[in-house]
């Protein structure tokens, strides 16, 4: 039977971001602080 699917079937696979990436994002979120001074929002990271 002739192949009628995409040449690169690998592109269709389901993947997930690594747990390390998720952990980084959660840590980033915890460390991010937004301070508003005179209507201007400043970002800061607390380690």
């Amino acid at each position, binding site marked *: 039977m002739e192949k009628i699917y995409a040449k690169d079937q690998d592109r269709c696979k389901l*993947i997930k971001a690594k747990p390390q990436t998720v952990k980084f994002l959660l840590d980033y*979120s*915890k460390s991010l602080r937004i301070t508003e001074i005179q209507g201007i929002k400043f970002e800061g990271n607390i380690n």
Partner: protein
Amino acid sequence: MDLQIDDSLLIRNYISGDEKSLEILINRHNQRISSFIYSKVNDRSITEDIFQDTFIKVIRTLKKGSYSEEGKFLPWVMRIAHNLIIDHFRKSSRMPMYGGADSFNIFSLIGDDKLNIEKQIIKDQIDSDLTLLINELPEDQKEVLTMRMYRDMSFKEISENTGVSINTALGRMRYALINLRKIIEENNIVLTN
């Protein structure tokens, strides 16, 4: 339990300071967003990078209070990911990367044997730590070790300069190394590059 909580409620909770809600949101949509990115870029590490950048934008927008609940969360995140994918292709078309084939890698020819700045800093740190450790040694051992390692003198030259036999110089060197190792172990010092 996770499935019962609506995205919009999780977002509200997250904006109010509940970090756990973000974890649920990321894990809930991880596969769909990652697979979407991967289907466009076809590279695992670039997918990870774009996924990370996408959520960094999400986090910043939510924390700044700039998120409007007009649309749904997932399509909004997908739009951010889509824009970042476009940025990625724009950048790579401006700066095409040549990785080389398995049999030939251009970087093996043009590689630089100098230490990069990070490795140089580590090396300098190790050198200075080692100097401090050597200063802890007894004077006779320190003398032999310094002559051998820093002045590159032979044991014959060391024995002539210090007025001891070659065997004594060898013995002092041996004890100097044993004592250095002992100091390193006792103080849990890591000297690696």
